[in-house]
């Protein structure tokens, strides 16, 4: 007969197999099981009997895992993995659907480029419509994966149709001419090209969530999906870049004109990669879950040092002199990365763990980022005061105010979380309620800004 310890170990390992239940939870459940066995043993049951009764009372392990999966659907998307029953067939189907949509998007991009006279002439309408050549396919991929009803599919198509009509009917100023084809294009048109993908990306939340926007936890899934998608996309881009670079290096000497091929492969692959990355996030969830915390661990201290040094440098030299459009873009990218790092590290945190050194490092990074952003905002306001509003300045000001408010809120809730006065739930709530703000601002830049500045 096996010993009680061996039986408990076996029960434990069976429970651990399920990805929805993590180590701490298994510890707690084992603790319960042991208490129950001890109590039962005092009433005269043998170890074996006590074990059986205790396990029976614990309930079906599948049900238990499902309950945990539901509870953690937010953090771990285990509803995909949680229903272990039909996982394998699902993955292969998903791959076929993903590849179909990725190829369709790549073809759409290639055809549109062909029509636009690429690569001799890079028409501005091509740039403006870039988001519309890719993201409808992502939306469609989600719609098929989530098995939306016909009505829901129509709803998910609305933003794309409206955007397509609107941005192509607006009469952007054409500052280019026959003699001077590379003149400054319309500023509002460029802003539309930059902001439309954001609007359309957030529109993809609807099919991604299976047509249900009411659940706040599921909305947080979408925020996380965005971050994890970004990591996969960067990895794919790096791999693709190495591949193309080596291809060129090997075939150019043999007289093959690789460059003119790459010109076509690159945009099509960049489009298809969007959907492949989305599929990877879903199907290789465990990989990214292991990767994101490691990346955060490595880069949070490095970014913290960099941010603190930059904050000191600009505090000493003043930001006014170096301030221009490019630097502004760099700052905005930096702030978005900091926001991403904070969200990753906090969502990967064990809620009941005491604050660690890493948490403090991260708070220092956020504080430095806030100081930098305050300086950027100050410089921008001075500039606008001197020179007045242009579409670019208004758009940049809006973006920075939004980032500043978001980071401040993130810092506030992080401090409360780390000092144990609040839970991650509150921070999640803050980010979720910010999603519509981002969407509304980007939509305003696409819809209201161009007529406001008479399409200049």
């Amino acid at each position, binding site marked *: 007969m096996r010993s009680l310890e061996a039986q408990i170990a076996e029960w434990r390992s069976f429970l651990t197999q399920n990805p929805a239940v993590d180590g701490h*939870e298994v*510890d707690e459940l084992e*603790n319960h099981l042991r*208490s129950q066995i001890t109590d039962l043993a005092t009433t005269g049951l043998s170890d074996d009997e006590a074990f059986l009764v205790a396990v029976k009372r614990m309930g079906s*392990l599948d049900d238990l895992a499902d309950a945990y999966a539901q509870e953690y659907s937010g953090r771990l998307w285990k509803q995909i993995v949680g229903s272990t029953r039909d996982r394998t067939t699902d993955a292969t189907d998903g791959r076929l659907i993903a590849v179909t949509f990725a190829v369709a998007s790549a073809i759409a991009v290639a055809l549109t480029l062909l029509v636009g006279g690429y690569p001799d002439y890079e028409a501005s309408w091509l740039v403006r419509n870039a988001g519309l050549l890719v993201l409808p396919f992502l939306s469609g991929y989600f719609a098929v994966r989530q098995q939306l009803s016909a009505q829901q599919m129509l709803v998910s198509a609305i933003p794309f149709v409206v955007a397509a009509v609107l941005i192509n009917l607006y009469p952007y100023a054409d500052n280019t001419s026959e003699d001077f084809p590379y003149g400054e294009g319309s500023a509002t048109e460029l802003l539309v090209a930059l902001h439309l993908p954001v609007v359309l990306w957030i529109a993809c939340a609807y099919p991604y969530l299976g047509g249900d926007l009411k659940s706040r936890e599921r909305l947080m899934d979408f925020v996380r999906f965005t971050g994890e998608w970004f990591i996969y996309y960067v990895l794919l881009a790096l791999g693709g870049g190495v591949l193309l670079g080596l291809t060129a290096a090997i075939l150019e000497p043999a007289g093959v004109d690789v460059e003119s091929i790459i010109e076509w492969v690159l945009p099509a692959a960049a489009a298809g990669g969007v959907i492949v990355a989305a599929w990877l996030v879903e199907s290789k969830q465990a990989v990214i879950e292991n990767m994101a915390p490691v990346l955060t661990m490595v880069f949070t201290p490095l970014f913290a040092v960099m941010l603190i040094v930059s904050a000191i440098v600009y505090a000493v030299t003043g930001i006014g002199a170096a301030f221009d459009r490019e630097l502004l873009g760099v700052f905005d990218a930096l702030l978005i990365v900091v926001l991403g790092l904070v969200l990753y590290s906090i969502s990967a945190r064990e809620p*009941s763990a005491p604050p660690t050194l890493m948490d403090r490092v991260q708070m220092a990074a956020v504080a430095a980022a806030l100081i930098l952003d305050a300086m950027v905002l100050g410089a921008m306001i001075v500039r606008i005061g001197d020179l007045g509003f242009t579409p670019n300045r208004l758009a940049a000001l809006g973006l920075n105010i939004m980032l500043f408010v978001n980071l401040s809120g993130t810092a506030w809730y992080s401090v409360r979380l780390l000092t144990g006065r609040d*839970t991650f739930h509150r921070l999640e709530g803050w980010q979720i309620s910010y999603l519509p703000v981002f969407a509304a601002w980007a939509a305003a830049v696409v819809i209201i800004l161009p007529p406001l500045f008479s399409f200049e």
Partner: protein
Amino acid sequence: MIDQGMVRTVQIDKDLVAASATPLVLAILVEGENYGYAILKRVRELSNGKLDWTDGMLYPLLHRLLRLGYVTTEWRTPPEGRRRKYYAITDSGRAALKEHHRQWVTVTDALSEVWRDSDFSDFALGNA
């Protein structure tokens, strides 16, 4: 022992068990911080064993309360005994409990009002 065999187990509807779980756990934690196994024992004690949960289900519930900020938790080893994960109610947990209480009182008031003159309460309790 013999008595127990004769008492008909009162089956409580699954939805009702689920609906009452949160206020029950929160109310037990108001009595003082506690760990999972003892919370379950308290539930059985309070309901004379009629409210019998599947043990495992308590833990996902506790984790939900934790995420909602209604409880806090920490692993601790009492002077004698094994290391356990203790849960304590927070202020927002108390507020949530108050709201649950308000709702349950409304429901039970309405039910007792409408059932006051019914005689079926006799046969429901009569055989017990």
